[in-house]
């Protein structure tokens, strides 16, 4: 998956697709103080991590901030990284833990904030909310509107469903990798992803999903 993402991001940016050095080698070099190796790791994973966090939080500025924090945490934890599992798994675990912590902070802020008590901003909630049933757009909405509707629906999923479905359907990770990131059983991972798809299906209009 890592090499797929790497090639995809480099293809998008018009860069070269040839990858000579593995993630493990770069991580080992960075742990030894090689700043260039750490820079290469950032080049490879900054876009996937930013996208993952953006889809999780539905807030680009927050996503970029947490993505940067992810790499800072990685930098100071490289000596604890070992090549027993994929580097991307290690990185996504850091990112998902940060994202979940941020989500819980938002909950606490909303709970203790007077403005938050009277806020009805649906995009800021982490709890599951069923679809309201009304049509979001007419039949002519473009992809951005469609994506915004899907993103809004994802943001309403509980965190334990949100992380696996983003990793699976957006970041295109395997079930095994997702199990490693979340440190849960493979069956639990599949179950949560199926459950998340069902929730989204209920939330989203059939037109958005292209079923009409």
């Amino acid at each position, binding site marked *: 998956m890592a090499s797929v993402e790497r090639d995809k991001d480099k293809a998008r940016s018009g860069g070269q697709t040839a990858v000579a050095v593995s993630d493990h080698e770069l991580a080992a070099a960075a742990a030894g103080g090689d700043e260039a190796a750490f820079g290469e790791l950032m080049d490879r994973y*900054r*876009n996937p991590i930013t996208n993952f966090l953006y889809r999780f939080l539905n807030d680009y500025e927050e996503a970029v901030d947490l*993505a940067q924090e992810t790499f800072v945490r990685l930098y100071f934890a490289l000596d604890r990284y070992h090549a027993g599992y994929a580097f991307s798994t290690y990185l996504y675990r850091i990112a998902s833990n940060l994202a979940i912590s941020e989500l819980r902070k938002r909950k606490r802020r909303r709970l203790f904030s007077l403005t938050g008590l009277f806020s009805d901003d649906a995009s800021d909630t982490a709890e599951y909310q069923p679809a309201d049933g009304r049509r979001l757009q007419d039949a002519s909405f473009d992809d951005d509107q469609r*994506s915004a509707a899907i993103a809004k629906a994802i943001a309403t999923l509980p965190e334990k469903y949100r992380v696996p479905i983003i990793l699976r359907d957006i970041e295109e990770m395997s079930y095994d990798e997702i199990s490693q990131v979340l440190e849960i059983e493979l069956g639990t991972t599949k179950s949560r992803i199926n459950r998340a*798809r069902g929730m989204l299906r209920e939330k989203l209009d059939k037109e958005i*999903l292209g079923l009409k």
Partner: protein
Amino acid sequence: MTDELKELNAEDRHVAEALGAMPRAAAPPDFNHKVRGRIAARRQHSGSGWRIFVPAIAAVFLVALGTVLYLGVLSSADVTDVPPIAEAPAQAPLPPPTTPSMPSDIPESPEVASAVNDDASVPNERLAERPVPRRQPARTESVEDAPLGGSLDRAGSPVTPNPDRPVSSNVSVPDMRPPGFESGGQVDSSEVLSLMGLKGNFQADGFLVSNAEASGAAARAGVRAGDVVESLDGKKIEPETRFASGSEIRTISVKRNGERLTLRINR
């Protein structure tokens, strides 16, 4: 992924495809730069923390170490080593404690004078040169502090008297007591034998003489190397045997080739 989509029902497949088709967010161009800035700031922050804590920890450690050492010195020090400060002048009716530097003009006690004068075999000039043993510091239990510099081993190891110490031609047990305590003192048998000019080892049946100095009282009485001194004035010789200070030895009993001899010490 494609195989899995085939297995999914149509609605779930549409959901998965819709999520996969969403535009991807990209990191801003200055992403790496900002990450490095954060790392530098975090490192500097942690470094400043160490700059504060390291000296503090070092100071605490040094204070603790000093306290431990101080307490260790106090606990290991003998109480008698602590000089009395306030109480000493108030409760000092006793004679002054023994000091290394004794005044040389202290008059000898009458007993000492008579003992010296009784030693007719020694010229008065030699007596004048001979050190006065009774003015030695007070006895201690440590054999290393034995007077006259000899090393005494009460377990029977070789006795090595101080070679500079003169050997008495007569046997008068020296008074080892400090001034003011002239009565009741005692001297080890090894010291008495040494004063008689005998060298050797203690063994089960007495003191095996390895060398008897010719000028000594024992040699003049007839003691030779190889003799085993069994008693002095009838008092059995053992490492623990002690003689009263100031007493005089008249006879010495030895065993020579299995034969017991009682020799009279000439004056």
